[in-house]
């Protein structure tokens, strides 16, 4: 058990190291960092000095080690566009992204489970077919089209919801939250739906399939034979057993939600990390791209590790032959 966790943790560190090396390679070899700092008419001698002060004259392995150590300490360098430390920029943008991802996940889980249970129990009803169609659309439509559609309906035509930004935010220490103001909550609705729709259809499909499966098992038949109420059977016994895969998916998908927030944040001009990243890609701001990559890698690895460890705690059968769901 302990050996397994240690092995998993070592693998996680290996992945982070690999991503760190990729980030360093991007930083060092994609474009010349000196050119980003000095102006065009800087004399060669001065350039050389900047080069030396950045440590770009040292052997590549030394530079790499230095980069990795700095990254581990949370120092990602200075953004080319903003001339500010990348870590400050990310810290400033992070609350917006995390709040959006959290709301999207809650939306996806609540509606996904409800729709999944309903279409699992009443497989042939009209509403279940409607849900199936929605799920097909949710998987086929690109995220940004859903966002544009929502904006057109609720912001342009009806004027009910704001089309961009976070609304008013409240500062709690370094964390700026939009959850405490009316306009902040209103601004969260459309981005959360846009971001969560894909996850919702995923959860709905899983819950539906699991419900259909579970309802055929012997213990459900036995529960019926015991004369339990339909309600107790469906929600006390069947639903409970479908929730393990749901929790896994919600957990594993949280990283994807944060990554997909890139698109949603661009559509709604949401001032989060994703928007920062897109602007970095457009302007070839390598320090931000590298830092974002490292951060997302850290989130993904941490989630995968946590899920793996939780699995072995919850289900001893998995301790030897654990596989990541793909």
């Amino acid at each position, binding site marked *: 058990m302990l050996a397994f966790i240690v092995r998993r943790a070592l693998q996680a560190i290996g992945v982070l190291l690999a991503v760190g090396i990729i980030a360093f390679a991007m930083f060092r070899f994609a*474009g010349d960092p000196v050119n980003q700092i000095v102006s065009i008419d800087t004399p060669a001698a001065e350039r050389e000095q900047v080069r030396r002060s950045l440590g770009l004259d040292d052997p590549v392995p030394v530079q790499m080690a230095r980069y990795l150590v700095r990254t581990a300490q949370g120092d990602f360098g200075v953004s080319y566009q903003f001339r500010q430390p990348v870590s400050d920029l990310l810290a400033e943008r992070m609350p917006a992204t995390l709040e959006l991802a959290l709301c999207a996940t809650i939306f996806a889980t609540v509606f996904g489970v409800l729709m999944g249970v309903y279409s699992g129990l009443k497989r042939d009803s009209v509403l279940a077919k409607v849900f199936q169609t929605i799920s097909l659309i949710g998987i086929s439509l*690109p995220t940004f089209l859903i966002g544009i559609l929502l904006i057109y309906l609720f912001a342009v035509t009806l004027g009910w919801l704001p089309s961009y930004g976070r609304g008013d935010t409240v500062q709690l220490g370094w964390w700026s939250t939009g959850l405490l103001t009316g306009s902040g909550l209103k601004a969260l609705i459309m981005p959360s739906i846009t971001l969560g729709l894909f996850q919702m259809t995923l959860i709905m499909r899983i819950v539906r399939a699991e419900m259909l499966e579970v309802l055929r098992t012997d213990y459900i038949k036995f529960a019926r034979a015991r004369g339990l109420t339909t309600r107790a059977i469906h929600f006390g016994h069947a639903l409970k057993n479908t929730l393990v895969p749901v929790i896994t998916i919600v957990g594993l998908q949280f990283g994807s939600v944060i990554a997909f927030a890139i698109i949603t944040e661009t559509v709604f001009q949401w001032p989060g990390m994703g928007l920062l990243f897109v602007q970095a890609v457009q302007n070839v701001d390598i320090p931000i791209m590298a830092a974002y990559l490292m951060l997302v890698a850290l989130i993904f690895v941490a989630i995968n590790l946590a899920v793996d460890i939780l699995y072995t705690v919850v289900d001893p059968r998995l301790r030897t032959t654990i596989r990541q769901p*793909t």
Partner: protein
Amino acid sequence: MAEAIQTAPTTPSEPASWVGRFLDSDVWASFKRSKLTIAAAFLTVLFMAAAVLAGVLAPQDPFDPAQLDLLNSRLPPIWNAEGMAPFLLGSDEQGRDIFSAILYGLRISLAVGILGVAFSATLGIALGLIAGYVGGTVDAVIMRIADVQLTFPAILIALLVDGVVKSVLGGQLDAGTTLSVLVFSIGLSFWVQYARTVRGSVMVEKNKDYIAAARLIGLPAPVIMFRHVLPNVLGPVLVIATINLALAIITEATLSFLGTGMPETMPSLGTLIRIGNNYLFSGEWWIVAFPGIALALLVLSINLLGDWLRDALNPRLR
């Protein structure tokens, strides 16, 4: 009877009977049964034909500034009172016909999608074959890379590769180079699934007698891999390729929408949607709506085709 037995083994290799065999197969039967699949196939073929024939079908060449007239800008669709022929679906702020722009955009979107899928399939199949057939350290290294990559969403990898390649190439890129960069980044973000599937099938196939026989007569490993193993593992690859075509088109559209894909001088559907999005608030909904509908229908019909193909061939995917 004796004749039938004699001819039976030769039939599969004859091209003439290949069509007959297909019409007789379960795949074709299940295709005929599903109306939705037929509709999806029809739409897909229609889109492809429209993309190929864009130059003939479009009333205007949207890339030729000489054909654009600012007097025709921001016209609503033709069924609207202010609409004007030949601007079937209206025009944008430069007087560009939306219908023509969609036809040409479709061409770019499909080209990037198909080339991206071809690139990722080639890469994935080659790496999967090598990993499965050679085994050992090579296998371990390739599959570890695949594992790491699988933990990240494809769109993130495509965005990163796109950004890095652009910064390496530097400066302003022309439309053709941008297209190649897009194909490259989409290819790099989707190869894992092919590699995994092919590797799995190769592990099964390589222990069979025909491979042992091929080895016995002294064929070199690459010949065995590509001529003998590969044709037997292509079924699942076809399914993945179909589903990934939809994904690749969405990825390209997303990159273009985010402003890191095709430039406005040579717009794909995603670029058209990005341009149109700016006019949403001034009420010119048609500039974004029709490219959006085209993209959605295209992706939906390819997805439906892919779903059907997966069920029909049933290669135990997912």
